[in-house]
Every structure is written in C-alpha cells, then in structure tokens.
C-alpha cells in the first residue's frame, strides 16, 4: 500500500510531485522518491519522509515526472528498495502500488536473460519487463509487460525524454486529474485537489497514455471513454484548519459530519431499506477489517436485537480462508477507503456465491462500490489521520439508520429511534465541550504501558475500538475484553501497573459490570469508568468520566468519542507522531 503520483504539463514537475506526495503520505511513509525527465532521467529516492526528500531534491526544471511514497511489503525500507525503479539502461522509470505475486519467477527469467536487478522489491521487475518488450511503442511495451504479471497494480511508467506517462490499473486505485494543458495522476483524490476538481477513475484492466494535452484510455487494447467526474472534496477539508493534528480535527468534526450525513440520508439512503423484507426475513453476513469490524460488531448487535435478524459477522481477512461460503441473502461489507484488499476479495467471493453485496464506504467510485450491487455512502469527508475516527462514527450511523428505517422495525420504535439519531450531534458536542476531564484521565493513562478496556453487550466492541485506538496512536499495549471474560485469564495480568477502563452502560449489563469492576479493584488495579450515571460507581472506581444520559443503545457513539479523545491526549502526552503512526498506513490495499 503506497501512494503514487505523476505529472506532465507546463509547470515544474518537481514542486507538483512533492506536494502530491505530501498529501499521499498517509498511504505510507517509510520511503519516497521522484523521477523527472529533464530531458535526461533523474531519480532521487531514499528511506526518508517527503519533507526531507524536498531538501535533497535539486531544482530541476523538467516538466514530466513520477513520484512514490512507500509502505514496505517486499524488501525493507531503504534507498535501494524505494521507488521509482529503473530498468538496466536507466531510461525507463516505474512507480507501482500493489503486489506482484509471480515476481520471483519473472525475476529469475529476467536475470537469465541478462537483466541486472538491484532491489528486493517486486516492483522493479516491471521496469525491466517494459525494457524487454520496448520496440518504439511505449504503450505497447507496458501493455505487453503487464500480461506477464499476476497480482495487483497501479502503475505509472515514464521514459527518458518523452513528455508522456503510461498508466495501468488492476485492483489498486488510480485516478487521473484533468488540468489545462497539463494532467495529473495519483492513487487518491486528495493529492489532486490543489490542482483540479475534474477526475477520471480507471477501471480494473485499463491502460492509458497521458500527455499534457491528451488522455487516451484502453481496455483490452480497445480505446474506451471513461466518465469525467467532479470531486466533492475540497482542499479545505484535506487540511488541518487550526488543529495541531488531523486526528483531533477529525474527532471534533464528528457532530458536523453526523449532521451532514443525516441530511444526505434524508434523500439518498432509501434503496437499502427495501432489502429487509418483513415476510421473508433475510439472513445477513457482515464483513469488515480493523475499526470497521468494530462498527460492524455494534451493527450486528443492533440488527439482531432490534430487527430479530440472524446476522453472521466475520473479519474479512479471515473469511477469505473459509472453505465453504456460508449461505446468506445479503453481505454488508464495511470499508472506509473502499480499497481494503481483504474486504474486496471477500466481496468478490460473496458475489460469486450468489450473495447480494452491499458496500458501506466513505469513498465515491471506490473499488468496493464498483464490486457491490448496492453502495451506501458515509459522508464523513476525507479522513487523513491513519486512525479512523469520524468514518467509524459515520459507519455506525449508517448501520443504525438502516435499522431505524427498516420495515422490520415497528413504526413507533422507528420514529423514536430517528428522534434519538437526530440528537446525536448535540450529545457529541456536549462531550467535546467537557473534554478537560477526559484530558486529565488521558494524562494518567499515558503513564502506563498496559491497559485493559472492558465492556459488555453493545459496548464490548467499543472496548475493542478503545484498545485499538490506544495501540495505534499512543503505542500503549491495550486489550479490549468482554468484561465477563476477564476472569478467564486476563485477571492474572491485572495489577497496580495495569489499569482497567470500564465502559458502564445504563442497561441490563450494568450490575454485571459493577461486579466485574469489584473483582478487578480487589486485585489492586486502578479502575477508570465511563458512564452516564456515576451513582454506585464513584465509591468503587478511581475516576469517572461522566457522559450525557442517552438511551443505552446509543451509548456506543458517546463512549467511542471518549475513547478516541483518551487515545489522542495520551498519545500527545507521550509525544507520539499522532497522524502517522509507525508501520501503519491508512488504507490497507495489500493482503
């Protein structure tokens, strides 16, 4: 999972590529590089951040170039393995995102044929294949080269002295930005927003040649027209707007994005409701990875308890190893980016098995929405910080919205649920208004190395999400556990140096939670609690974060906001690189 960029036009490619790479850094940042034809081929790359590359890079006037920011899959992050990769002659340069499954075979054959490969990456073979097949037809050589490749790729290839870029896409995202006597290429829209709002999304199997004045796209070697779309994201949304980190900005945006999503769903969410036939209750599979999986777990709870539907849930990354696909009517697949490779693979398997697939994603025209029979978008806007926050909340809203509007829910309950959904932005704002208390607790949390989050029922997935946030942004080892399971093992780890964070909802789990807390407390562990009702709690725990009182089925929204803020402030106290945690990337486009 990497970010790629390309430019050909009338301006200095250097500055445009650097800027695009900066905006793509969330996709990977263990190394980066740029190649520019000036008219000779110049390649600069290293295992550095984009800001450091900018200092290394001379002021080349060349107007065509490619760039790459890497998240290592094959080969450690170092200068040799950084992209762009070149062929033996150094005349052809390639940037690649994806994975080439048969690269070992290709590499051996290329070496036999006398090619000199210098890196440990799978990507380098592409440059040499293009060299091998090149006979005065640049596009033809790339088209021939990708026939040898098995796997996924988004490619941009350039050749010394030529003001054109050849591109290809298979299962990895690639967009073209259309300018005035200049054109742009990137993995993702945010990299283009500074320059243009008109974009073309490529389909799997597309190849193309891009010059400053012309874009020609081919599918199976036949010319095709792809629709030019207007982006709905503005560059403003892609910037920090006063905040120190994207993560805090995105946490604070949650009341607004929920409000935006509500007004969008007032007009656009209806197609999803018809799926829930009250006569023949459908069976459902939910699939997702990471934070999306936690949102799906909450969705399962809601759909099972309110709609009385059988709901199976799997991690998409594990589902792909099931020998037999479980029978179901619908598969709801959650992916923020719409490009999560494991989820896409699971979607394809479901489709092949005849299951109708519904994608819930934040990215318009993503691969997930192309595969799915039906897409329900979340309207969170671009999320830059690697840790998911507002997209998680919007996924939850989508799942609750479906439940509230499903014909399976009686009208009175439906009305009541809609009323409660509309109050969520106000409740979230209230939690944000009282964040000083959360900061105090987070400072305390930041001084520990091991933490348990516990919850029961609908808040058990929130405990898992809280632990995940603390791991990924604050680098604190944390585990989310069902409170009832603590005594089956983890209690052995609990003690004065391992605090426990308890999510205490005001529902039928409350008494059992209090019992769990007492068990833990008697082992000498500091216990912190999040609850709307501090009665009976203040005496037995060390500190309580009080949240507004809501119907317990909506408590995950408020508890999630608290655990997000705890992770942010704990990370800030520990001096972590909050928006770009080590070893992680925003959208996981590899298996």
């Amino acid at each position, binding site marked *: 999972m990497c970010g790629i960029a390309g430019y050909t036009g009338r301006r200095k490619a250097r500055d445009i590529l650097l800027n695009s790479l900066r905006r793509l850094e969330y996709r990977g940042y263990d190394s980066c590089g740029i190649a520019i034809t000036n008219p000779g081929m110049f390649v600069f790359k290293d295992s550095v951040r984009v800001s450091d590359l900018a200092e290394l890079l001379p002021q080349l006037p060349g107007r065509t170039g490619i760039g790459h920011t890497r998240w290592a899959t094959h080969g450690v992050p170092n200068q040799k393995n950084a992209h762009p990769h070149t062929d033996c002659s150094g005349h052809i340069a390639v940037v690649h995102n994806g994975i080439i499954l048969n690269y070992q075979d290709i590499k051996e054959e290329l070496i036999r044929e006398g090619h000199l490969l210098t890196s440990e990456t799978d990507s380098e073979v592409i440059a040499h294949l293009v060299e091998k097949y090149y006979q005065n037809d640049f596009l033809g050589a790339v088209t021939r080269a990708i026939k040898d490749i098995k796997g996924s790729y988004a490619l941009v290839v350039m050749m010394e002295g030529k003001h054109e870029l050849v591109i290809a896409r298979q299962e990895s995202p690639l967009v073209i930005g259309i300018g005035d006597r200049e054109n742009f290429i990137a993995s993702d829209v945010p990299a283009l927003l500074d320059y243009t709002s008109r974009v073309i999304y490529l389909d799997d199997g597309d190849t193309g040649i891009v010059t400053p004045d012309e874009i020609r796209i081919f599918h199976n070697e036949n010319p095709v027209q792809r629709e030019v779309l207007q982006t709905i994201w503005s560059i403003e949304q892609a910037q920090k707007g*006063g905040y120190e980190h994207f993560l805090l900005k995105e946490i604070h945006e949650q*009341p*607004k994005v929920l409000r935006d999503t509500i007004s969008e*769903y007032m007009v656009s969410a209806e197609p999803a409701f018809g799926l829930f036939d009250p006569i023949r209750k459908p069976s459902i599979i939910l699939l997702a990875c990471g934070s999306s999986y936690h949102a799906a777990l909450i969705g399962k709870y809601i759909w099972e308890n309110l709609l009385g539907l059988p709901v199976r849930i799997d991690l998409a990354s594990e589902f792909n190893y099931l020998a037999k696909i479980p029978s179901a009517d619908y598969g709801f697949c959650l992916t923020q980016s719409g490009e999560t490779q494991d989820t896409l693979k699971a979607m394809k398997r479901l489709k092949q098995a005849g299951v109708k697939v519904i994608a819930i994603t934040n990215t318009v025209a993503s691969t997930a929405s192309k595969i799915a029979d039906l897409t329900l978008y979340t309207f969170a806007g671009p999320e830059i910080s690697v840790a998911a926050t507002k997209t998680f909340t919007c996924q939850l809203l989508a799942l609750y919205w479906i439940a509230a509007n499903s014909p399976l829910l009686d009208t009175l309950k439906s009305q009541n649920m809609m009323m409660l959904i509309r109050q969520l932005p*106000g409740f979230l704002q209230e939690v944000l*208004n009282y964040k000083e208390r959360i900061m105090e607790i987070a400072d305390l949390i930041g001084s520990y190395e091991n933490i348990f989050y516990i919850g029961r029922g609908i808040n058990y997935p929130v405990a898992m999400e809280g632990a995940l946030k603390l791991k990924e942004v604050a680098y604190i080892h944390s585990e989310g556990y069902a409170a009832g399971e603590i005594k089956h093992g983890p209690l052995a780890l609990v003690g004065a140096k391992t605090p426990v964070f308890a999510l205490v909802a005001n529902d039928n789990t409350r008494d059992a939670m209090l019992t769990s807390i007492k068990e833990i407390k008697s082992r000498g562990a500091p216990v912190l609690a999040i609850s709307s009702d501090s009665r009976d709690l203040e005496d037995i725990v060390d500190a309580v974060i009080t949240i507004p009182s809501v119907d317990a089925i909506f408590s995950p929204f408020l508890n999630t906001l608290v655990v997000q803020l705890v992770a942010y402030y704990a990370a800030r106290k520990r001096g972590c690189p909050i928006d770009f945690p080590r070893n992680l990337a925003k959208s996981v486009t590899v298996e």
Partner: protein
Amino acid sequence: MKQAVILAAGEGRRLRPFTTNKPKAMIYIAGKPIIQYVLESLANNGIRDIILIVGYRREQVFDYIGDGKQFGVQVQYITQTRQLGSGHALGCAKGATDDEFLVLPGDKLITPETIADILAVSSMSVLIRREENPSRYGVVTLEGNRIARITEKPAHPESNLINTGIYSFTREIFNFMNSKLDIPDILNEMIEKGFAFRAVETEATWLDVVYPWDILNLNAAILHEIPGSQNGTIETGVTLKGQVSIGKGTIIHANSYILGPVVIGNGCVIGPDTCILPATSIANNVVIAPFTEIRNSVICDDVHIGSGSGIEDSVIDKGCHIGGHFYACSEETEVKVDEEHHMVKIGVMLGEGCRIGSGVVAQPGVIAGNYCQIKSFKNINGIIPDKSLVV
C-alpha cells in the same frame, strides 16, 4: 490592501449562556455565525488573506471555518492565550502581517459595503459611524476628518460618532504596543506623538450583539436580505409566502404555513400543520413537530420542539430537546444581566442541550443555562444556571 486581521478571541460574557461554550464571533444569526459575515464581506472586496486571532473556545472556530476555502478566503490562525484586550490580540499577529492590513472585530455583523468604505481611503484610518446611544461604545472626537481622540464608554459623550473597531493600519502600529492593551489607547498615544488617523464614516450595516436578546434584532434585520430558495421536499398543501429559504434534505410536511422572511437549514423535518412566522431562522437537523407555532425566533442545530408548542421572541441554542406543549410567550419584562436591569420584550433564552419535558411553561424573560433539565409541567421563570435540574 490584501490582508485582514480578525479579532475573534473574545468571550462576550454578557451573552451567556450562549457564550459559555463558544466565542461571541460564533453566535448564529440567520443560520450563520457572525464571523462568517465578516469573512464573506472581506472576500467580496478581494481581501482573501486572513489572519484569525482566536482564543476563548477556539475549537468552535476551527470546526466551523477550517482553512477558510469554503468562504473564499485563506485563513491562518494565531492563538491569543489570555484575552487581555484588542491591542494585545492584534500584537499576536506581529511578524505575520503585510505592510498594510485591515483590522476587524470578528463579532460585529457587517456587509461588503461596510468594508468598501474604509478601503476607499489610504491606510492609517478608522471606520466610524453615527449611533443614537453612543455611550456604550468608544466615542470619537474629530478635528476635520482626523481623529482627535477616542474615549471609551463615556458617561457624557462629546459626539454621537462611535468607533466601529474596523481600522486600516500599517506595520508602524506594532511599535506602539508596549504598555497599552487596547487599540483605542494605542491610537490615542500615537496621536499624541504626532501620528494622524483619518476618520471614515460609514452608513452601511454594522450590528453588535451585547445581550442575548440582541440576537433577535440582528436576526430580523438580516433575514430581510436573504432571498428565498427551495431545495428540500415540500409536501402538498404547504403555503410559503414571502422570502423563505429551505435547505437540502429538509422536509416540510403537509399543511404547514410559512411566512417569510424565514430561513430553514438542511435535514430538518417541519410539520405537518406547523406555522413558522417572521422573522425566524431554523438551523440544520431541527425537528418541529405538528401544530407548533414559532414567531420571531432563532432555533439552532439539532433542536427538537414537540407538538402543539408556541414559541415567540426566543433563542433556542444547539441540541435542546423540548417536549410537546411548550409555551414561551413574549411580554415586556425586567431581566437582570451582569447586575444591570433591562426592560425587554422577549420569550425564552435557552442554552445548549437543555432537556425539557412536556407541558412546560416558560415565563417571559427566562434565561436558562446550558444542559438544564426541566421536568414535565413545570412553570419556569427568571435566571436558571447551567446544568440545573428543575423537578
């Protein structure tokens, strides 16, 4: 002139409860915070490079304004950690400004014409205006078209010309910030040392909100200037008269009667059989249940108002949830704010996130704080502090 420094760090204590969780510049008038009017006025005059001085509850400004692109400007934020005065706030921008720049308060509602007046003259000038009741402002004494002095809140004003707080300066101003914390004091000192500031009088819009009920006056004044537009779903039997603006995703249910000027935001559900009368603004994600009448009021985001309610001359802040048959009637009444007594004709001033049961009657002039809970069938009056529980 390409740049402006906007001072938006201030709290506005007398506007509580509405400024407990947001700065004064973020008070909503006709569906937009005051600072948005300032930014749009600047953009309209080609001033797009904005330095925004923030402080009190600055996250509210960040969350709304972002980097300003949405409003046609580019914003750079500078934080004033302690709100010591307008001069001190401006001092925070030292080193960040061009040679020439405008300075404006972020909490006074203006239009593009207001700024055009000061842009017509060279820098080192002060925008002034006539005011019937000048003594609550800085009163300006003139010598020809130059400022002789500015006197803050004089008991016996020498003129009815007041300082709007809108200036055009050169960087010279930063050399005089050593001892004085407010811009008028700095100007007085500079004038004594021989500097000249030109006075420019404006007759364009410049509206200040000092007390909670001022929100209603500003709202009414601005609503008249907003043209009608309909983006939502309007069911049969709905009557819309006058200037009515309806946002996207909003549904106006059957038989509702809306008499402009009225602004309704995005994602709202109004009615059926609801009556919205002038001059009312309703923000986003608001529900107004059947058989409710609302007149001359400001309803903020995420508010729910139950059926059969009657609300007039009232301000209801974000996230309030009000049961059915709530009455907030307006009458001339005495209200105490900051130890001062005022005779005003208002209904209720309700802070953020209040939970109000059914059948509650608010006496005229109630000012309820944020996050109050009021049980059903209570009769409330006077000042109710934040987070009160009325049972």
